[in-house]
């Protein structure tokens, strides 16, 4: 049972929104931000004239034990399934959500995340170390098993994140952290409209059925739903979070071209499909799981009927 939490006004607004969006009511203009960073101070907007934080150049990595561990972390970050198969239960890699090897602003860059931990997370109702935060990625986004906090995989990934944060102020929220989610559109979102955006702009890479694309054994474009994608407990299953990622980063190389409305619509379309079950499933009961974990978690469709089908059943 989650201990009682003091909800920020934004969270309450988002919870209302979740319902309003489903019913097709006009959404209130309020921040939908309720992701796992909620407990962190909100990332400030960047002044137009100032650059994003710049992580160090790859060429500056020393050729010593530290440099080797950082390089190993980067390799795992890019080839997660190939290099850490025992922890990955789908076909995703860290770099699928953290573009440019975890360097890109508004694509949850590691340099903005690393310096904010330890931090309290509502998701597990405790103060999490950075290693624990990454364990969550493996359990939910990678639909796998969390590596031990002192495992080689997490040590290497931590070293990589630490090195990317070289020169970043500790404990100070940096612009570009997370996905900088757009405001929910006034008229709510529309899954059918999102399907049109998807087939025009996304299907060429992610496939007509969200399956992504492989070349031989190598997954090139990530699956967005179905058994090989992130599970119902991953942050990306929230429409608000996916809308932020999509608007800033998709289509590849053409970020910032979709409107708030298009980003929300297509995010809702993607997240209205089945995916692996939330590993926190309560007593094999979707409704109980929805109430406990999804009701207050941004805008999402877990445990909701869409087109006569109950979502949240999970696929294997």
């Amino acid at each position, binding site marked *: 049972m989650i201990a009682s939490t003091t909800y920020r006004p934004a969270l309450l607004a988002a919870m209302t929104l979740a319902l309003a969006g489903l019913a097709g009511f006009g959404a209130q203009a309020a921040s939908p931000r309720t992701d796992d960073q909620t407990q962190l101070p909100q990332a400030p907007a960047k002044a137009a004239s100032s650059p994003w934080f710049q992580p160090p150049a790859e060429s500056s990595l020393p050729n010593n034990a530290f440099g080797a561990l950082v390089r190993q972390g980067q*390799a795992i970050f890019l080839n997660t399934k190939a290099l850490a198969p025992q922890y990955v239960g789908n076909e995703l890699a860290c770099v699928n959500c953290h573009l*440019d090897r975890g360097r890109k602003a508004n694509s949850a860059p590691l340099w903005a995340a690393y310096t904010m931990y330890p931090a309290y997370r509502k998701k597990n109702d405790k103060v999490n170390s950075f290693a624990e935060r990454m364990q969550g990625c493996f359990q939910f986004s990678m639909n796998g098993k969390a590596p031990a906090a002192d495992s080689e995989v997490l040590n290497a990934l931590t070293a990589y994140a630490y090195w990317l944060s070289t020169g970043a102020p500790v404990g100070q929220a940096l612009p570009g952290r997370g996905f900088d989610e757009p405001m929910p559109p006034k008229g709510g979102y529309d899954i059918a409209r999102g399907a049109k955006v998807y087939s025009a702009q996304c299907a060429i890479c992610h496939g007509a059925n969200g399956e992504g694309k492989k070349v*031989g054994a190598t997954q*090139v474009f990530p699956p967005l739903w179905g058994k090989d994608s992130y599970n119902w407990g991953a942050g990306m299953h929230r429409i608000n979070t996916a809308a932020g990622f999509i608007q800033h980063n998709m*289509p590849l*190389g053409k*970020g910032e071209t979709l409107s708030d409305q298009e980003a929300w619509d297509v995010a809702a379309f993607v997240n209205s499909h089945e995916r692996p079950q939330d590993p926190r499933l309560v007593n094999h009961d979707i409704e109980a799981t929805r109430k406990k974990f999804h009701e207050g978690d941004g805008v999402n469709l877990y445990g909701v009927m869409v087109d006569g089908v109950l979502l949240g059943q999970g696929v294997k």
Partner: protein
Amino acid sequence: MHQPTPRARAWPLAGLLLLTSLASHAAPDGDTLMQKGGANPAAMPCISCHAPDGKGMAPAGFPRLAGLPADYIRKQLHDFKAGRRQNGVMQPIATALTEEEIDALAGAYAARPRVNVAPQPVGTPPEGSGAWIALRGAWDRSIPECTLCHGPGGIGVDPSFPPLAGQGAVYIENQLKAWRGTPAVKAHGKTRAVAAVPPSRQNDPNGLMQHIAASLTPTEMKAVAEYFGSLGDSSEPFDDTQHRLR
């Protein structure tokens, strides 16, 4: 419900068989088309530029077609026909090809050996090199690494992202220029103003390449083209089982 007699059903089937046999007469097999050209003399033999083995002539900028996805080749020929891809040599040829000939050629080239790129150890490319653009991109200019869409090692992702590995450097560079067009030059001193030339290639899905080509410098275009031109080997069969690291 009315049930047709067996006899009445047989006639349309016979007609279909007749049509099928006529169509197969009209379109010779792809290999013959490559060597002798299409029924219309303007559809010249492919091998004169793309070489008998279909691997192209890299120094002259004639691209490799062997092992490219059939859907990709079909689309390019249609795009030449429609003018979405402008090229003085290929547009008349594509226009002279029949649909059946296009299908036969696309299938025959796709059936030829695909470039194999052996999985290689992943190192750090020199910053600013062609390999850097290929493997790291230039995200500060919204340029993703080429391998993100064209597959690890540039092996291609069917059907929309063709292989870059094993493709001639001159050809790749020419395509980047074609997607870019040339920007206008202002009058300066004694030189006259030159109007912008729009991209001569506008057939990339979602305009994914135009934006990238417009953001690359000419030096980067050349370097990245040379990088991919140096990769690939078709003496070994394409290995589908290997996991290729990025």
